[in-house]
């Protein structure tokens, strides 16, 4: 006799959809807006790309602190995680900051916030794309 209390096995279609959702989420993280673009949400894709890109360019241009993996304390590590959220734009920010960070003035401090916000915003957008791909919200 079959156990009626056991949860039914997920159909293969849902499994494929879940895999695609992961791919879309990771794509959205690596290239800002790509996750939404894969789902043909063009407006959101373009806006994610532009806002994250502008925040990175402004943050690096203001010579904000772009954290690296060898942080001294927990705040440095958190900052590194936030900066990594920009995906490939982290490398763009690195290349723009040829002379390194300068947080001796307010502009550099603002730049640090711009860079971290770009990363967190991109993670939020990637999560949104992942949820939309799962059909939870759009």
């Amino acid at each position, binding site marked *: 006799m079959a156990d009626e209390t056991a949860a039914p096995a997920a159909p293969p279609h849902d499994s494929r959809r879940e895999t695609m959702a992961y791919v879309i989420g990771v794509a959205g993280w690596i290239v800002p807006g790509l996750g939404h673009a894969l789902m043909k949400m063009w407006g959101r894709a373009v*806006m994610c790309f532009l806002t994250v890109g502008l925040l990175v360019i402004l943050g690096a*241009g203001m010579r904000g602190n772009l954290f690296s993996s060898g942080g001294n304390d927990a705040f440095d590590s958190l900052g590194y995680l936030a900066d990594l959220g920009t995906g490939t734009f982290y490398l763009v920010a690195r290349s723009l900051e040829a002379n390194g960070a300068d947080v001796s003035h307010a502009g550099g401090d603002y730049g640090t916030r711009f860079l971290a916000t770009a990363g967190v915003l991109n993670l939020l*957008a990637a999560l949104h794309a992942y949820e939309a791909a799962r059909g939870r919200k759009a």
Partner: protein
Amino acid sequence: MNPGMGIKLSHLQSMLLFALLISIAFGFLSRRRPIDRVKYIVWSLFLFLLIGVGIGWAMYPFSR
């Protein structure tokens, strides 16, 4: 842009740019219809600026 020179922005310009970019991103992510997005962006931008300027004035008595 010369990265060595850096972009020079005042406190107000930095706050305005930050608030505008984040408001646009939030508006596009959280609303679907264009009119709803515009409303959300305007409202979010207004609140960003109101709270930013408000906190600035709240700190003013302790600045000297």
